């Protein structure tokens, strides 16, 4: 499989990465080189093989459903590019 320019733009939008017109052909070439490379997986007989979901056999531990941390909103927003009254500030999203 290979991707065309339109698909490159669609992937970029899905990934929320702005691309310029000049970048698209370049990205297309690189993505197709990688897709070409992974194409060889098609040779492998995977009939009846379970997809891996956990690399080491382990049961995920569950902790008690209790609040064990928190209470410091100032620390949470300390690295935010824009905040006010311990809220993250974003451009208006609801008209």
């Amino acid at each position, binding site marked *: 499989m290979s991707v065309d320019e339109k698909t*490159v733009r669609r992937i970029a939008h899905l990934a929320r990465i702005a691309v310029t017109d000049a970048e698209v052909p370049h990205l297309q070439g690189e993505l197709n080189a990688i897709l070409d490379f*992974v194409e060889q997986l*098609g040779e492998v007989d995977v009939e009846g093989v379970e*997809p891996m979901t956990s690399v080491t056999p382990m049961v995920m531990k569950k902790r008690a459903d209790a609040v064990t941390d928190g209470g410091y909103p100032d620390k949470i927003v300390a690295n*935010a590019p824009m905040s006010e009254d311990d809220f993250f500030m974003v451009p208006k999203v609801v008209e």
Partner: protein
Amino acid sequence: MTDLTDLSLAEAREGLKARRFSATELTRAHLAAMEKAEALNAYVLATPDKALAMAAESDRRIAAGEAGPLEGIPLGVKDLFATEGVRTTACSAILDDFRPPYESTVTRQLWCDGAVMLGKLNNDEFAMGSSNETSAFGPVVNPWRRNGSDTKLVPGGSSGGSAAAVAARLCLGATATDTGGSIRQPAAFTGTVGIKPTYGRCSRWGIVAFASSLDQAGPIARTVRDSAILLSSMAGHDPKDTTSADLPVPDFEAAVTRGVKGLRIGIPKEYRLDGMPAEIEALWQKGAEWLKAAGAEIVEVSLPHTKYALPAYYIVAPAEASSNLARYDGVRYGLRVPGKDIVEMYEKTRAAGFGREVKRRIMIGTYVLSAGYYDAYYLRAQKVRTLIKRDFEQAYASGVDAILAPATPSSAFGLGEKADASPVEMYLNDVFTVTVNMAGLPGIAVPAGLDAQGLPLGLQLIGRPFDEETLFAAGQVIEDAAGRMALPEAWWA
């Protein structure tokens, strides 16, 4: 007295214990070496004030008889580990001036054991790369050079800063991470020892995530023993990481002198690649002979799905990366580029903040997870991953204790040498290491000799799950036989 920066970690530990020098003196020696080594670009942030304060604390604890196992040992930290109040960027512009309000579990354990932080080390952006050339802070230069040449070489990646700093005596050891070879490949390129432990051995909490089912932390050091000492402090169960294994941490240092008598070491025939340099093949052969001479039995094993590990990795790792890196949106931390609405803000922020390799991988990951392609790519790759792991399980079930392979298909290459190549050519660097991540196994790279150009080459040992001890034992046999790697001459100072 020899230069304090020339000591191994174990020797420095003895010196501190015997009060031949203080933690402050040891730290000052390293800070001075770092100042002179800016040409290597190994550190992206030096923290001398913090280092000296921690060293003074260590001296106080040593005097009070309260020394921890790593008391006063100066270490470098890969910039992928969150360090409380100290800038942590994963060497990406998108994290900007991020100062974590928390400490990663691995580094917290090191400081609890008395270690001293010298600063943050360079790496490929978000650990995506095999040459440390994708870092937003610029490339790291390998302290090793070819005989009679001053061409700048890469230190490997992604933990290139860690490997270069350890080789150049800018710290006694360093933390690193390995998703497809990022500890073992740079260790091999710099004549240092690097171990990627079993998936789950070290907590991933507080480490900037790349591909969560593959990422593992581990140390890079100058000797097998030093790496064992460091891993003992880094490893252990952490309730904050649900994938961290709730198993006791063995005494790794004790395993170093165990030897290999009676062990069976497998040689995987599928690792003999077409066009593999004769020097690599010869070194591999020599490694097998060393282990045999020390009492191990050498047997051939088959890992038939080896050639599919790299293509499967380049689906699984970007898929996980595209999800993990969705968090960099310009809202909660890091860079923000304004836009007319929130989507444009996301798109502009991510376009400006991510480098080319990172964008490429996010886009591949987004594509293979997108509707209509998920089964053909991602699901198939996860099935292939099951087969890769099964290959190893069958080898170990046949009675093999560890597997010996080359660490890399070549020695260090020149800076910019692969700049115009297809991304796939760079990916091929990880051909011998990536299988280990796909199967969640431990792997160690140990320096085993120099090539005709005078550059270090490494051998890799791959172990059973949670059997790092055998890797330290066999790694020490290789280190003893090969002789300790001569340190590169300090041309940068």
